[in-house]
């Protein structure tokens, strides 16, 4: 079932929204309505749905209506028309009381400028949502404490927001949204105010938190790279309308119109391509217990100076160089004694961008490992060719 379902959601700002709506329904353009009536169409018949556990990103430039749209979802802004179903219930038809209850139990929100309460400590900021529900102090502080630990802010419970850096403040914002244990997180440009490095760190942590906690995330951003990195699916907005919804691959590979294709033209391919896109099958493999001589022969056959070692279940064990293998053969010791185990491994979803530094330093190809299993290897050559050729060419070659 869809966690969030948005149908024909429309917001018109101005003196007589219903009249504006009539004009809109008669097919008048947003620009004409503005010119004739002075009313602004903020969001124009937006429809999309978000599945439970999905990370859904709405991406658009400033003025595209994305911030209005996310506020229509929890009715911080009253919609002019359309419906928003949260777990199948239309929030636009709720009474005040039902709306407050839904906000308390089902919708957490994170803001661009953090929106923290400066007069409260980190702990009481995080506990705010529970406090207004009337939860007892001890219980709400326990839950808040857990959320604070989840976002890595342990030890800062009694600090005030203005004593923290921007990145840490936004962790507080995130913890406050997590503490309520609502299924849905609404994130309005949550990382846009942060430095690039901190932003990246927060993105990674958000992804792992979402994996762990299984939240449904509706994330707003103006940054296409961020959208591509985070979103299971992405909706692109322009002028209050959603122009395309799709996965990163669909949007990059199949832009719905010129606007989208102009947009994605400039995408830094290195940020989209991941290690799994450019990795190759390891050319040589052996089990840990194989003799040194067999290893040397395999390397000879492959023309390689090193070999990755796995066990029967394909669990990654380490790296054997040709020099070590020969030494082991001469002194007659088992290969697992000369194995280099302390080797840098990378995750299949590591962005190519992040591999440069590692690849330059590494003497040998990088093993791509997930859950202990060796999936493939990435060489310096494949990183560079990935950047030059792009995703399709690499995966098809």
């Amino acid at each position: 079932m869809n966690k969030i379902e948005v149908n024909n959601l429309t917001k018109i700002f101005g003196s007589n929204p219903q009249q504006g709506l009539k004009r809109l329904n008669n097919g008048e353009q947003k620009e004409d309505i503005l010119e004739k009536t002075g009313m602004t169409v903020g969001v124009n018949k937006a429809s999309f749905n978000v599945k439970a556990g999905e990370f859904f990103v709405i991406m658009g430039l400033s003025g595209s209506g994305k911030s209005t749209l996310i506020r229509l979802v929890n009715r911080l802004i009253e919609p002019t028309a359309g419906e928003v179903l949260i777990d199948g219930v239309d929030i636009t038809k709720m009474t005040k009381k039902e709306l407050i209850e839904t906000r308390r139990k089902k919708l957490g929100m994170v803001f661009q400028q953090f929106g923290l309460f400066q007069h409260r400590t980190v702990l009481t900021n995080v506990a705010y949502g529970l406090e207004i529900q009337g939860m007892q102090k001890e219980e709400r502080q326990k839950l808040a404490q857990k959320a604070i630990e989840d976002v890595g802010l342990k030890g800062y419970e009694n600090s005030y927001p203005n004593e923290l850096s921007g990145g840490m403040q936004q962790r507080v914002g995130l913890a406050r949204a997590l503490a309520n244990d609502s299924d849905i997180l609404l994130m309005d440009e949550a990382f846009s105010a942060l430095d690039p490095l901190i932003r990246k760190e927060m993105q990674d942590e958000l992804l792992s938190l979402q994996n762990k906690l299984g939240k449904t995330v509706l994330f707003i951003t103006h940054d296409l790279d961020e959208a591509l990195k985070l979103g299971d699916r992405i909706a692109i907005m322009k002028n209050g309308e959603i122009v395309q919804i799709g996965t990163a691959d669909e949007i990059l590979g199949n832009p719905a119109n010129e606007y989208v294709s102009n947009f994605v033209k400039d995408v830094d391919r290195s940020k989209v391509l991941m290690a799994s896109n450019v990795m190759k099958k390891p050319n040589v493999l052996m089990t840990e217990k194989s003799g040194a001589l067999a290893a040397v022969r395999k390397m000879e056959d492959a023309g390689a100076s090193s070999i990755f070692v796995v066990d029967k279940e394909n669990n990654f064990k380490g790296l054997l160089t040709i020099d070590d293998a020969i030494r082991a053969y001469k002194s007659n010791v088992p290969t697992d004694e000369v194995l280099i185990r302390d080797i840098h491994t990378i995750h299949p979803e590591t962005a190519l961008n992040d591999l440069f530094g590692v690849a330059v330093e590494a003497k040998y190809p990088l093993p791509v490992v997930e859950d202990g299993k060796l999936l493939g290897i990435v060489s310096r050559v494949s990183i560079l060719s990935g950047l030059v050729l792009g995703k399709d060419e690499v995966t098809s070659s």
Partner: protein
Amino acid sequence: MNYFHFPLEDWTNRFVDDWLLPVTGDFFEAISDGLRVFINNVTDLLIAAPPELIVLLLVLVAWKISGKGVAIFALIGSLYLGSVDLWSAAMQTVSIVIVSTLISVLVGIPLGVLATLNKTMAKVVRPILDFMQTLPSFVYLIPAILLFGLGNVPAVIATFVFATPPAVRMTTLGIQQVPADVVEASTAFGSTKWQLLYKVQLPLAMPSIMAGINQTMMLALSMAVISSMIGAPGLGSVVLKGISTVNVGLGLTGGLGIVVLAIVMDRITQGLGQKQKQ
């Protein structure tokens, strides 16, 4: 420019004589009686208490809230008031200031809150505040005498009218200055309007509200002096006596006393505001 005659003076007087006094006289008398008891109790308390005790408390409070400098100044100022024999006059002025500030704050802050919640309310309140602040303060004294007689009570009423606007305005301003995203955050997590107000808006508006209280108190002090003209006892009447007898020395002695009160009250209430900010 005299195209037609606008008999505002006659109308006003007829309104006061024919309607206001006969119809509402009892009502105002009741208020007057209640208020008189209250003011007299405060005054009696301040005068009857040993001055040393009051000074000790004052110095301690000043120290705690505003630091050593203000505490020392409060001590020296108190010694001055005692040495020129103006202690009880000062206490009379202080009690008028305290009572009228209290009423101003009790009326002003809720009014300021209402003005932020309700646009119509804001539209009604604003011109009234403008009127109250710009009308020369002496003008209030006349109806105050008519309705409340002479002495403490009309002084407090006139002072209340004169000193309330900053309490209202600064409350409204403080609440409006709470960042929009903070209000949004509170609402998004499911606050009721009331929870938003007392858990978020009022605490964040506190520095501004405290600044409003400070201004109210300063205005109250200046009005308490002026209201000596309608028989309010205190430092103002000392100055008034100095004026009417052309006694420069007496005028200066009383005037300095007012300065002492003003500085001490100002620094302590400002200190409270600073504390709120941290």
